[in-house]
């Protein structure tokens, strides 16, 4: 990605929609990338994407969306 990377996009989306669940899904498992995802308030899911890897993010997101509606 030459113009904008996923972390930049996530950060812009976070500013627009503070409550929206977001996850960074990447093969780049560097500690720095995990830390930046956390700082934005996004989940971190490592590639290759597996149901086990995605499940904690999806349950967290579902819980968050349910509680924000309540």
């Amino acid at each position, binding site marked *: *990605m030459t113009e904008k990377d996923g972390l930049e996009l996530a950060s812009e989306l976070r500013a627009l929609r503070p409550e929206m669940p977001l996850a960074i899904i*990447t*093969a*780049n*498992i*560097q*500690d*720095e*990338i995990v830390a930046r995802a956390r700082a934005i308030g996004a989940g971190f899911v490592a*590639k*290759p994407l*597996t149901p086990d890897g995605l499940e904690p993010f999806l349950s967290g997101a579902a819980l968050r969306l349910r509680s924000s509606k309540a």
Partner: protein
Amino acid sequence: MIPATVTLGDLERDALTEILNIGVSRAAANLRKMIDEQVTLSVPSIEVLSRRRAARMISEREIADLIAVRQDFDGPFSGRALLIFPETNSLDLVRAVTGGELSNDQVVEIEREALGETGNVILNSCLATMANMLKRSLTMTIPEVLRGNGDMLFEVGEEGAAEGLVLFLYIDFAVRKRDIRGYIAMIMGIPSLEVLKELLDEFIERVVGQDA
């Protein structure tokens, strides 16, 4: 003649081998998740040699044309990482990572994208593990799929590049049940090797203390 500043000592070589072992094991575990078959790896080979010789080491072992996924990395040290395999294995690998659910036409259609993504996962596993263990961060380019021979993959044809020394790291991998095999290779120029040597010394000091 290899300059003394870039000759790795025994401990530095062991440390680099260990870091690479951990990186490629993670890569193999990820590939295993993608294809659901056992992946075997060789012990990493670490050599300082000319770019031309590095290309020849691959070409001598492979008569067929090669296909490679390339990602360049940059940071305190920079270079190129390649996932290389004989072109004849390419569609088998795509079939393996797509779970054998696609028709032949579909496999051909998504070949480039599937190889790029497979390379992305494998190369990032190695590079990110190296970066984490050396406590530095690297930026990686998006994966690019190339076809050609060893000379082309290592850019031996570039003016003045052929005789330049590089650190050449490579590991053989194989998926025996599917008859797929290839290499994970990394090349770095001499300035990067000098930095890498310092980072390896820091790593050794963290692991064994200052007695080393």
